[in-house]
């Protein structure tokens, strides 16, 4: 199928795409019967509880396990001296219990496996670990001596076009501001969990015997299998990863983490017994990734009519000493506006902190917060309506490459959003509206998310004489992919959705790529469409029982020579208590350009959910690292705030009808991340409009408005 064909082998027969189909597993989820990683019924389980480091950098000098060993019901105590030597620890995140080095606070330094969770936890508390602590550094600063440019020749840290410095020197209006975002944690509601079962003959590393099954809470069963097999030196065919339901991830479950390895090591040492390991909420603050803090300087040089001449975005972030992870916050600033002169830079400092990783829209979420805040400041400096300012700087082609946009439509998002929100006749003066105890304001911000397509997924379709079963090892982490892929399969086969059953979340199914980068539905959907086309090619429309076909997603599905990305516009009303500074957001409205929407019910939930996480980023989220210890002080859900029901008002997501053939065979782009991008800036801009106070450091807490 070429990229410009409409999807589906039997057009007109049944149009499953675009139906607001109910989430297929909804009944199982509302009753709680849908099994998550911890919940698969397995006989005679054991329970693992880890011991984690209490220094940020140093060496373990002694581990006393005698009290734990002596605790009745303890089956195994793992330490760095007794644990198996792993086959491949090239990725240092997975070098679990391999040495005496401690590289961050909260790292695994031992583990206890016992008959009951109570025993495992208490015995872990009885393990005494002594350290030789070394001076650590966990505080990111704009001029940190360890800053370095990440990347390489193919993907450099810095980009420059034109002569931005000259423009900054001569332009009549210059905005030069620094914005900060804090360390943040994904905190999916289901803690990261792995249940590991080693079956087969001889235990022990190197024997090569046996099979490993992981019931894992992951965004990608196949990627976890590849990682775990490599680290443990196993043939991937002998590792099975099962994850039919996943309680959220938002990126943190996008790869295996150290706990997968630790559970597998314990299972290999205790063959035949499932080892259940659910991280505690507290442990999730050091072991499964986080969003780096950012320090971002944005400079905009404009003519007095608001036309931007130069855009410079410099981003400073941290990574860990264990391995590099670069968030890339300035990257999308290169494609937002028509500035002839541009520079983006990125610097990282490797600190003694836990390993950062994906968190919903890594890079775009903090980066666009900074850029769109600066745009609001530019609008104010020029005395131009902030919607109009963005319209004036709309680029006709991708400023990075000169390529035409496939389906940008940001102008339509802004115009339709302004209309729906009631933006017209907005009084631009900040800090002048009052309703009772509330100071009231409105704000706008634009959003962008790149289009990612991952080749490599395979789908298989089997007909049993009644129903069509579609198998693909994809993940449904709450995105609705099970439902959307069923619709895509029905479309491809020209069948009503009731005739199709889709199975996912298991490496026994054909391989699929990770649910990440808003690429899932698009990438897996391409495989499902290819399999459907192959099935119809081989078996026609009247197959016999047992008919079967399998196909891979095309290597190239995205049109060349076009700039393909999603865009959006956020409109927000904010209220700030005139006495106490408490901030409330009664209204959020987003309009998005995302290509074709496969299922409007689940897509709406995704977009609204992203907006709520953006609200959370704006008002609530902040992980506080104690510089003395490197420990996240507020490492639980009582003190690491995410919004509760009472914080969330009227949140509405709309999208522009249409499809983007350049995006791939579905004509769809992802909806998982665009909702969070820009939302925090819109809130910050609305708060400024309400109060006249420009908060340039998230989260926006009430103390900024008191005193």
């Amino acid at each position, binding site marked *: 199928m070429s990229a410009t064909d409409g999807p589906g082998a039997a057009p007109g027969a049944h149009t499953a795409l675009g139906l607001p189909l109910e989430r297929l597993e909804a009944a199982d989820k509302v009753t*709680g019967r849908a099994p998550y990683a911890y919940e698969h019924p397995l006989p005679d389980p054991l329970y693992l509880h880890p011991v984690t480091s209490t220094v940020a950098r140093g060496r373990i000098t002694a581990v006393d396990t005698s009290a734990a060993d002596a605790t009745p019901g303890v089956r195994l105590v793992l330490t760095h001296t007794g644990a198996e030597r792993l086959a491949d620890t090239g990725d240092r995140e997975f070098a679990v219990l391999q040495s005496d080095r401690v590289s961050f606070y909260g790292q695994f330094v031992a583990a206890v496996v016992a008959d009951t969770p109570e025993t495992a936890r208490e015995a872990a508390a009885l393990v005494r670990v002594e350290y030789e602590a070394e001076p650590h550094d966990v505080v990111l600063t704009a001029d940190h001596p360890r800053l370095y440019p990440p990347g390489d020749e193919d993907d450099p840290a810095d980009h420059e076009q034109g002569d931005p410095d000259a423009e900054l020197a001569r332009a009549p209006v210059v905005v030069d501001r620094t914005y900060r975002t804090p360390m943040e944690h994904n905190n999916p509601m289901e803690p990261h969990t792995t249940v590991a079962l080693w079956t087969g003959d001889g235990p022990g590393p190197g024997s090569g015997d046996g099979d490993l099954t992981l019931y894992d809470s992951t965004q990608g069963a196949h990627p976890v299998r590849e990682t775990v097999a490599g680290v443990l030196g196993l043939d991937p065919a002998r590792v099975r990863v099962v994850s039919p*339901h996943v309680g959220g991830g938002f990126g943190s479950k996008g790869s295996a983490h150290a706990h997968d390895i630790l559970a597998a090591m314990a299972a290999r040492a205790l063959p035949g017994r499932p080892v259940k390991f659910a991280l505690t909420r507290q442990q999730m603050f050091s072991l499964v990734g986080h969003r780096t803090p950012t320090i971002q300087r944005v400079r905009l040089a404009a003519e007095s009519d608001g036309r931007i001449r130069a855009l410079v975005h410099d981003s400073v972030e941290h990574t860990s000493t264990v391995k590099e992870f670069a968030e890339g916050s300035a990257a999308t600033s290169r494609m937002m506006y028509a500035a002839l002169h541009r520079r983006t830079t990125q610097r990282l400092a490797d600190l003694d902190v836990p390993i950062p990783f994906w968190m919903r829209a890594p890079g775009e979420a903090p980066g666009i917060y900074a850029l769109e805040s600066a745009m609001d400041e530019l609008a104010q400096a020029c005395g131009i309506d902030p919607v109009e300012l963005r319209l004036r700087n709309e680029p006709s082609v991708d400023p990075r490459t000169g390529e035409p946009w496939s389906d940008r439509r940001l102008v339509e998002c802004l115009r339709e959003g302004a209309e729906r929100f009631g933006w017209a006749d907005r009084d631009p003066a900040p800090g002048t509206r009052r309703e009772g105890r509330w100071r009231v304001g409105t704000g706008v911000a634009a959003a962008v998310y790149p289009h990612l397509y991952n080749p490599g997924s395979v789908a298989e379709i089997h007909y049993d004489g009644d129903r069509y079963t579609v198998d693909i090892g994809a993940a449904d982490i709450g995105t609705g992919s099970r439902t959307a892929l069923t619709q895509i399969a029905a479309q491809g086969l020209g069948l009503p959705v009731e005739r199709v059953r889709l199975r996912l979340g298991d490496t026994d199914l054909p391989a699929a790529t990770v649910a990440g980068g808003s690429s899932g539905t698009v990438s897996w959907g391409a495989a499902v469409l290819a399999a459907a086309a192959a099935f119809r090619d081989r078996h026609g429309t009247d197959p016999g029982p047992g008919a079967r076909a399998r196909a891979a997603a095309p290597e190239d599905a995205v049109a060349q020579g076009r700039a393909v990305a999603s865009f959006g516009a956020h409109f927000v009303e904010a209220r700030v208590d005139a006495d106490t500074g408490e901030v409330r957001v009664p209204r959020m409205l987003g309009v998005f350009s995302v290509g074709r929407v496969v299922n409007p019910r689940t897509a709406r939930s995704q977009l609204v959910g992203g907006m709520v*996480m953006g609200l959370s980023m704006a008002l609530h989220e902040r992980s506080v690292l104690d510089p003395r210890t490197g420990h996240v002080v507020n490492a639980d859900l009582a003190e690491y705030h*995410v919004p509760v029901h009472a914080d969330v008002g009227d949140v509405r997501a709309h999208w522009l009808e249409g499809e983007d053939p350049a995006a791939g065979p579905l004509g769809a782009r992802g909806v998982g991340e665009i909702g969070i991008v820009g939302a925090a800036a819109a809130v910050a801009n609305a708060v400024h409009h309400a109060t006249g106070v420009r908060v340039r450091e998230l989260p926006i807490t009430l103390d900024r408005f008191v005193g």
Partner: protein
Amino acid sequence: MDATITLHVDGEEHRLTVDTRTGLLDALRDRLGETSPKKGCDHGQCGACTVLVEGRRILSCLALAVSHDGARVTTAAGLAPRGDLHPVARAFVDRDALQCGYCTPGQVCSAVGVLDEAARGWPSLVTDESGDDPGEGAPVPLDREEIRERMSGNLCRCGAYTHIVDAVESVGSAGAGGEAAR
């Protein structure tokens, strides 16, 4: 130290021996294989473990099993006979008031408790108590602000809040409230 207790879960009686340290949530999940109450934080900070005990919504993670000997526990799985959906659960499905689903059984149990509490006339922080006799006990109408405040003990990281409020509002206005929990 062990103790032998009886739990009535979703209408079924279970006799089990537990460690005195075992939480009600762990007894339900690890010992009885109940998957409906979820562990999101284990410290009373997220609401995912919400169940009804004697019809009242509580957090099962902060309850000790040994102290609940004889208790009648209702989870989201037991609100309606197997194969049926409780009106609140049905409304969650109808409104797509869930995404990952992990907080959902707790949200559903909490909503059932909310409907019952409002029907009893229990106020919330946002209830207007300025009337002549705030203690008269008339049912509290559940508008969106009431639902938001009363449901605030149930976190949803997917951000399904607006749809959850839609669902609870639809059941509340249909008058299915008071009987739901009993």
